[in-house]
C-alpha cells in the first residue's frame, strides 16, 4: 500500500510540473505531494529504513522526519484546499498545526533508548510519557488539519472531489484510532485493547491516503486529457509556423510560449504573433495556412 501511494504521488508530482511552472496557485498542492513523497521515502518505502537511519545516527530520527514531512504535506494540502474553497487565512487555525513540530522535536529528544532502528519504534516505547506526547501531538495535529480540510471541502465534495473527502475521512478514522491507542495505552490498564485499536492505524491510514491521491490523479487526468486533445496539435502547428517564418525576434520565444503558457493561452499568443507578422510584412499567408488559422480561431472564439 505504501508503495502504491508512493507511485501515485510520484506520477502526480511529475505530471503536474508544467502546471506548477505556469500557475502559481497550484504550487502549494505540488509542494504537499513532494513532502508526502519525502515522508514515504524516510519510512523505507524505496531505500531500506536501516540504511537511511544509519546515516542519521541510527536512533530513529527517520521516525521524527516522517512525522514532520507528513505534517508539512498535510499543511500545504490544507492550503490548496483553502485556496480552492476561497477561505481566507485565519492565523490560529492556519499555523496551529505547525506549532506541534517544535513540541514533537522536544518530546522526541526526551525519549529514552532511541536506538536501534525499528519500524515499531513508537509501539515499543509507548510506556514513556515523551513517546505518548510525541505521537499524540503528531496525531492531534494531523486530525485537526484533516478535519479542517474535510470541512472546507464540504461544498465541493461532489463528483471527483468527493473521493478527496472520502479518502480523508478514512485518514481521520485511522488517526482517531491511533490517538485512542495512545490514550488507552498510557492512561489505562487496557493495553491489549489499546493495541487492537492501534493496529487499525496502519490498515486505514495508507488506504485513506491512497484513495485521496488516486482521486487527485483521476481528477487531474480527467481535466487535462481533453485539453491536450483539444489544443496540443494546434499549439505545435502554430509554434512550428512561427519558427518556420521567423515571426519572432528571438528563436526561443515560440518554444518558451509553448512551455510557459497553458496550451490555450499559447495558441492565442501564437495567433497574435502570426497576425503581427502579416501586418508588419504587409502580406497574407497562403490560403491553406490561412484556412487552418481561421479554423483554430473559430475554436478559440467558441470558448470566449
Amino acid at each position: 500500500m505504501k508503495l502504491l501511494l508512493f507511485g501515485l504521488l510520484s506520477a502526480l508530482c511529475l505530471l503536474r510540473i508544467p502546471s506548477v511552472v505556469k500557475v502559481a496557485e497550484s504550487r502549494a498542492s505540488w509542494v504537499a505531494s513532494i513532502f508526502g513523497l519525502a515522508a514515504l521515502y524516510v519510512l523505507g518505502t524505496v531505500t531500506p529504513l536501516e540504511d537511511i537511519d544509519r546515516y542519521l545516527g541510527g536512533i530513529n530520527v527517520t521516525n521524527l522526519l516522517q512525522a514532520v514531512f507528513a505534517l508539512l504535506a498535510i499543511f500545504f494540502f490544507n492550503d490548496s484546499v483553502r485556496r480552492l474553497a476561497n477561505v481566507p487565512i485565519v492565523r490560529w487555525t492556519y499555523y496551529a498545526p505547525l506549532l506541534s513540530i517544535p513540541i514533537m522535536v522536544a518530546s522526541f529528544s526526551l525519549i529514552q533508548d532511541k536506538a536501534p532502528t525499528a519500524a515499531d519504534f513508537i509501539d515499543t516505547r509507548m510506556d514513556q510519557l515523551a513517546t505518548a506526547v510525541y505521537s499524540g501531538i503528531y496525531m492531534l495535529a494531523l486530525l485537526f488539519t484533516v478535519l479542517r480540510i474535510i470541512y472546507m471541502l464540504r461544498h465541493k465534495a461532489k463528483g471527483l472531489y468527493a473521493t478527496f473527502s472520502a479518502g480523508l475521512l478514512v485518514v481521520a478514522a485511522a488517526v482517531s484510532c491511533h490517538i485512542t491507542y495512545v490514550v488507552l495505552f498510557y492512561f489505562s490498564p487496557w493495553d491489549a485493547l489499546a493495541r487492537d485499536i492501534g493496529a487499525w492505524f496502519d490498515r486505514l491510514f495508507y488506504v485513506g491516503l491512497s484513495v485521496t491521491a488516486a482521486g487527485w490523479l483521476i481528477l487531474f487526468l480527467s481535466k487535462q486529457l481533453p485539453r491536450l486533445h483539444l489544443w496540443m496539435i494546434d499549439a505545435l502547428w502554430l509554434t512550428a509556423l512561427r519558427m518556420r517564418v521567423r515571426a519572432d525576434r528571438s528563436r526561443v520565444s515560440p518554444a518558451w510560449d509553448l512551455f510557459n503558457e497553458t496550451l490555450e493561452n499559447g495558441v492565442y499568443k501564437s495567433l497574435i504573433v502570426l497576425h503581427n507578422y502579416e501586418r508588419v510584412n504587409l502580406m497574407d499567408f497562403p490560403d491553406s495556412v490561412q484556412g487552418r488559422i481561421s479554423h483554430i480561431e473559430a475554436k478559440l472564439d467558441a470558448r470566449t
Partner: protein
Amino acid sequence: MTLPPVQDKVRELCGDGTTSMKEVVERLTVICEKPINLIEYNESWGSLTAFKAEFEDRINVYFPPQKSQQYKLHCIYHELGHIYLESLQVALALPDLSGEMLRETADAISITCRSVPNHPVERWVEDFAFEMSKKTRSRSSSDLDPFL
C-alpha cells in the same frame, strides 16, 4: 523607465475574476474621466494595427476591420493598455502616423498607436492585452484550480 507589474495592474483594474471589454472600457472611462469610443476605421493602415487619440473631451481608439475577432480585440486591448498606463503617469512611446491619420486626429492632444515595436511600453501594453484576453476567455479560469 520603471513600469508596474502588468498582472498587478490588471488585477487592480478588473479584480480576480473574468471580465469583458465593455467592463474594461467603463472602468477606464471612470479613471480617465472621459468617454472612450471604439471606432472601426476603414482606411489604409499599412503595418499599423490600431491607434489611440486623446482629445480634450474624449478618447478615441481606432482599429481596422479584421477578419479575426481575437486579433481585433487584442489590438483594442493594446490601446486600452496605453490609456491605462497613461493614467498611471508613465511616459509613452511615440507613434508614426500616416498623413491621413494625422489629419483625422488634427486636434488631438496626444496619440499613441500599436505598431509592434520592441519598446518597453509597447511590450507592457502587449502583455496587458494578453492578460486581458485571458480574463475574457472565461472558461480558461479553470486553470486556477490549485489541484491541477
